Every structure is written in structure tokens, then in C-alpha cells.
């Protein structure tokens, strides 16, 4: 009987050689399915990345914004998680304290340092370190329906919040709309973003000397404004259960004259396939308060970071660098504006959305931060409750905010 061993060895060798060592790397990335870049945009960007880097495979997962924070932490806790995660501007403090994201300060190139808008960097910074690259540069703008304003004889959109109230009253009085203003005041972070916009307008502060300060002055004025607007019927009463997508739906159906929302609404509300008010959508920075501010804005930006549990930090970084690159961002500038200063003069970006770009130039420069504290989630939850209680008339704005400042559970 002939010895078959050499043959087998040869066979094994040949199969081993026939398959060149395909050291394919798989990255797991976590994104949100809400506002800013659409899921389709993110997939297309990622496809472009994998086409250029065939050795890397990227698995995408999309969750609602409301689940993004908890999912990131849970995946980390279980040890088998994502390589790349999207994170909100309010999380770096907590993430840094819990060692969620890799410090990438040294990976940032001089081109990035110079090209990216200074304000955008605040999104990823905590305690002098950078935990990723900014990706979504966003704030809440005041959107208005040009048709309705014209019918009410209003020449220009409001420059102050008081003026917004007057204009809404005029629209209501003319019988054009029952509730001219719509907001996202559901018990969620969205309500805090609207509130923060108003806090910045009224010159308030969240924390002074390490202690809550929102229960007085500007912080109190902001909530009082919300409650007054709600009680006067100028605000759509359903705002208290709305998130951003609900605001967009109401505005697109022509059921609101004014809406506070993120960048992404501009092009969607102007899209005839999506919207009944296409072509009538105006956008300006959120108004100011006489003697205190000329415009107001909340920093609602988000960044992409590498998790500490990632086995492929280098590939993850090149993916993040690709997603945040000027070329990628300029190509998808309809739903989210680039982080790159140079993009705002690039006709490919500005064309067809000059109004939005003009609003962005003022709005982005005025972005007001929510507090950077590791205990942000609890503070936010307490504030959400305070806002809802005040809107529902269960407590006065002053009492509700004082209770929130005193601590939650």
C-alpha cells in the first residue's frame, strides 16, 4: 500500500496557498437612525470606504438616538462591542471617566487641526484630550413657513423670542393656524436641546462654580417662556410628546408656521416628495433676547470615536478619518453640514441651500454647550421632568427647576 501522507501534505499545502492570507478585518460601528445623515447616506459613505479599503469590512448598526448612549455602555460592559461609536457632545465627560473611548489626541493630523472649525472640536474634547473626530456639526435653527408669514403680513422672520410670540399671535388671530409653533418637548434629550437654546438666549447658565444655576435668572426665564407659550396656545400642545421627527412631520404638513429643529429638516422639508411645504421653507438662527443676545443656539454636535474594547483601532481610525473627511462631508452636505471651515465657501456645498449656510454661519458660531459633567445623564433626566411638570401645570417653573437642582432620585 503506497504511503498517502506526502500527497495529503501537498494537498493541504496547496489549499493553504490557494487562499492567500485574507486577513480581513471586520469593524462594528454604531450609528443613530434619527436626524442628521440618513441611514442611506451613512451606508453610501461606508460603501465608498470599503471600496477603497477592500480588506476592511464594516458592519453598521442603527439605533434611535434615545438608545445610543445606553447601547454603547452596555456593549462595552459585556466586552464584545463596537469598534466605532457615534457619541453626542454631552457624553465625552462621562465616557472619559469610564474609559469608554480611546484618547486619539495624538492621531489627529495637522491638516485636521487647521481645517476643522474650532467650535467643532469642543464636541470631542474633555479635560484637554480629544476622544474622536467631530462628524455632525449641528444646532437648532428656527424654521418658518414663508407662505403663512406672508399671508399674515409679516415681512421678516423674528429676531427675538418676544417677536416670535407676537408673530405667532398675529397668525393665530388671523385664523391661519390654531397653534403656530411646534417644538420637541417629549420627556427626552430633545426637550433639553430646545430649553438650552432658550437658556442661551436669556443669558442663563446651567452650572456656576460647580452648583446648579439653571433654577434662577436665564434658566428660569427660558422655562417660563416655554410655559407661557404653551399656555397661550401659540405652541402646539402636542409638542410635549414630540421628538424631532414629529416636529418635521407637523411642519412639513403645513400645520406650523414656526419650528425649532436641526439642520436636516431644511432639505427634507424642501423636498416635494416628502413635504407639502416644499419651496416655502425659510431658516434663520434661533432668535435672541433684547439686551441679552442677538441669536441663540445649542451645541448639538456629535462625534465618532474608537472604543477601548476595539481590537482594530487603526482600521477604526482610518474609517473615522474617511467618514469625517472634507471630501465625504462635502458630498453629503444636504442633511448635515461639514465640520470643515473651507467647505462653507465651496459652491458644491452651498449651492441650493444658501439660506441654510447663511443661518449656519451665525448659528454655529453662537452654539451654547450643555454642561460637560460626568453626571450629565442624571441632571438631564431631572431637567426633563421639571420641564414636563411645568408644562403640565403640576408645578410652577421656579418650583420645578428648584426641585431639579436639588437632585433627582
Amino acid at each position, binding site marked *: 500500500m503506497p504511503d498517502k501522507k506526502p500527497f495529503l501534505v501537498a494537498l493541504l499545502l496547496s489549499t493553504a496557498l490557494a487562499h492567500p492570507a485574507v486577513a480581513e478585518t471586520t469593524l462594528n460601528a454604531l450609528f443613530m437612525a434619527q436626524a442628521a445623515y440618513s441611514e442611506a447616506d451613512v451606508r453610501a459613505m461606508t460603501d465608498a470606504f470599503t471600496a477603497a479599503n477592500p480588506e476592511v469590512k464594516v458592519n453598521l448598526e442603527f439605533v434611535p438616538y434615545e438608545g445610543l448612549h445606553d447601547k454603547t455602555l452596555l456593549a462595552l460592559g459585556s466586552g464584545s462591542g463596537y469598534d466605532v461609536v457615534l457619541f453626542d457632545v454631552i457624553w465625552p465627560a462621562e465616557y472619559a471617566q469610564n474609559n469608554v473611548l480611546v484618547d486619539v489626541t495624538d492621531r489627529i493630523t495637522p491638516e485636521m487641526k487647521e481645517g476643522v472649525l474650532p467650535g467643532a472640536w469642543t464636541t470631542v474634547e474633555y479635560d484637554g484630550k480629544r476622544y474622536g473626530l467631530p462628524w455632525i456639526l449641528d444646532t437648532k435653527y428656527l424654521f418658518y413657513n414663508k407662505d403663512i408669514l406672508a399671508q399674515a403680513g409679516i415681512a421678516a422672520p423674528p429676531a427675538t423670542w418676544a417677536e416670535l410670540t407676537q408673530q405667532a399671535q398675529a397668525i393665530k388671530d388671523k385664523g391661519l393656524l390654531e397653534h403656530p409653533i411646534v417644538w420637541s418637548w417629549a420627556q427626552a434629550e430633545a426637550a433639553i436641546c430646545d430649553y438650552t437654546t432658550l437658556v442661551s438666549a436669556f443669558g442663563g447658565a446651567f452650572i456656576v462654580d460647580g452648583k446648579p444655576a439653571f433654577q434662577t435668572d436665564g434658566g428660569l426665564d427660558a422655562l417660563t417662556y416655554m410655559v407661557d407659550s404653551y399656555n397661550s396656545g401659540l405652541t402646539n400642545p402636542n409638542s410635549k410628546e414630540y421628538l424631532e421627527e414629529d416636529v418635521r412631520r407637523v411642519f412639513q404638513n403645513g400645520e406650523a408656521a414656526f419650528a425649532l429643529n436641526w439642520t436636516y429638516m431644511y432639505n427634507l422639508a424642501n423636498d416635494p416628495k416628502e413635504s407639502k411645504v416644499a419651496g416655502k421653507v425659510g431658516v434663520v438662527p434661533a432668535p435672541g433676547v433684547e439686551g441679552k443676545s442677538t441669536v441663540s443656539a445649542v451645541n448639538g454636535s456629535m462625534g465618532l470615536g474608537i472604543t477601548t474594547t476595539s481590537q482594530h483601532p487603526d482600521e477604526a481610525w482610518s474609517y473615522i478619518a474617511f467618514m469625517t473627511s472634507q471630501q465625504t462631508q462635502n458630498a453629503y452636505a444636504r442633511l448635515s453640514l461639514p465640520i470643515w471651515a473651507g467647505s462653507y465657501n465651496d459652491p458644491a456645498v452651498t449651492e441650493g441651500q444658501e439660506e441654510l449656510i447663511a443661518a449656519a454661519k451665525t448659528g454655529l458660531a453662537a452654539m451654547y454647550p450643555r454642561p460637560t459633567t460626568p453626571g450629565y*445623564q442624571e441632571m438631564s433626566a431631572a431637567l426633563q421632568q421639571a420641564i414636563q411638570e411645568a408644562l403640565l401645570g403640576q408645578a410652577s417653573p421656579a418650583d420645578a427647576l428648584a426641585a431639579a437642582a436639588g437632585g433627582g432620585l
Partner: protein
Amino acid sequence: MRAWLLMLPLLAVMLSVIGWPFLDTLRLSFTDARLVGTGGDFVGVENYRRLFASSAFRRAFVVTTEFAVVSVFVEMVLGVLVALLLYQNFRGRNVLRALLILPWALPTVVNALLWRLIYNPEYGALNAALVQTGLLGAYRSWLGDPNSALAALIVADAWKNFPLVALISLAALHAVPNDIKAAAIVDGAGALSRFRYVIMPYLAGPLMVALVLRTIEAFKVFDIIWVMTRGGPANSTRTLSILVYQEAFSFQRAGSGASLALIVTLAVTVLAVAYASLIRRAAGERF
């Protein structure tokens, strides 16, 4: 001895998937551990003390009890009534019986989304139906109003879960011997007395089982509320399970989240034991 030997594989599995996590949760509940990072230090009963002192906990306990009691009551009544109806002999009965399973077969999240559409303040079917029939003057917000949010959730939950009660009751109804029913009719018992004295004794046992299952489930409710209101408005629908989630995951306080979870477990255990003894007593009376 042989019985224990045969049960060994099961016991091993149970101990590893329930026993160990339970003990670890117990340990966690006496620490100030965070979800990620530090293992935490021993803090004694501090977590429990803080919980019992907090108004959020008391409120969540009341909301949970309200939700569990009312939704289970509605499910039991509706379930038995529907079972009695479907027990009758009529054309299309089998089609209706098959349809009955539908709500129960729906995943909870789908059911929750469906009811959110129904309750929508602008284009919801409920508003349309009530306004068009003149029962309601104007569209209103069902989930955004703390006076109606919990009730709206209970309706959604009852709609999904009454088929379980109905199915169990239906099976029990078929176990009632026909000769007893015939005898009751011959003896001149009316419909109500027949239900009370002939059918109810057969229903009681199975209904107890349904009651136990549903109460425990309802007391632990999380998903339907999370999808529909996330505990809002102004925390008026925040149940204990949602509080556990918030403490342990959103706020990362694994220690106090664990103590809260154990309190929920304890409450459910007390309920289960109480029901079990009730069932035993009911069974003892019958036989």
C-alpha cells in the same frame, strides 16, 4: 437519591443561569458599583435606605401596582367573557377563535407601536373615531396627558394579553361535563346561576394560573411602556422596571439598580407565593 441524580443537569443549568447572577446581584446591591469601570465599595444597606426614602421609588411603586391591578383585572374579565362567547356554537366560531390569537401573537414592540399610531394626537384612529361619532369634541393627546397616559397604556396592554386568559378559559370550559350542564338546565337554573355554580368551579383553577402569570408579567412591565411613553409625561408612567433600567444603565449606578431590581423580584415573589397558596386552598376545596 435517584430523583436528585436525574435532576442534576437541570439543577446545574438553573444554578449557573439563575443562581449565580442572583447572588451576584445581591452582592452588587450592597455596593456603589458603576456599570462600567470600578467594582465599587461595600456600602451596606445605603442603596436600600436611599430607595425607600426617595419619592421617585414610591411613585414608581404606585404606578406599577396601578398598572398591574387594573390591566390584569380588565384582562381577566374580558378574557372570560370572550371565552364564554366563543364557547357558544355558531357559524364562523373557528375563524374567530383563530383571530383571537392574533393580538397575543404580536411582539410587544409591534403592539406598542401600533397603539402609538392609534393614540396619535393628530391622525390617530381613536381620535378620528371618537370625534366622528360625536363622543369627543376635539382631537386630544392621549399619551401626552398624565391623566390619560397610564389608562391608555393599560388598554394597549390588556388588548394584547386578554387572549391568553380567553384561551385558558376556553380550554377549561370544554372540560365542563355536558351532563352537569344539562342537569342544571333541567333543574331550572338560570344563565347566571349556571355560570356561578356549574361553570365557575371548573374555571377557578385555570383562571388562578392565568392570574398568577399575568400579574407577575404585569408587575415587571417594561417594553410596552418604554416604546409608548418612555415613562413620561412627567414620569407619570414610570414603572419600577423602567426605574431599574434608568438607574442601572442610563445613570450607570449598577449598585443601586441591583437593589431596586431585587425589590421588584421580592415583590413578585411575595405575589407568586400568595397566589400559590390561594390556588392550593381553592384546589383543596374542590376535591
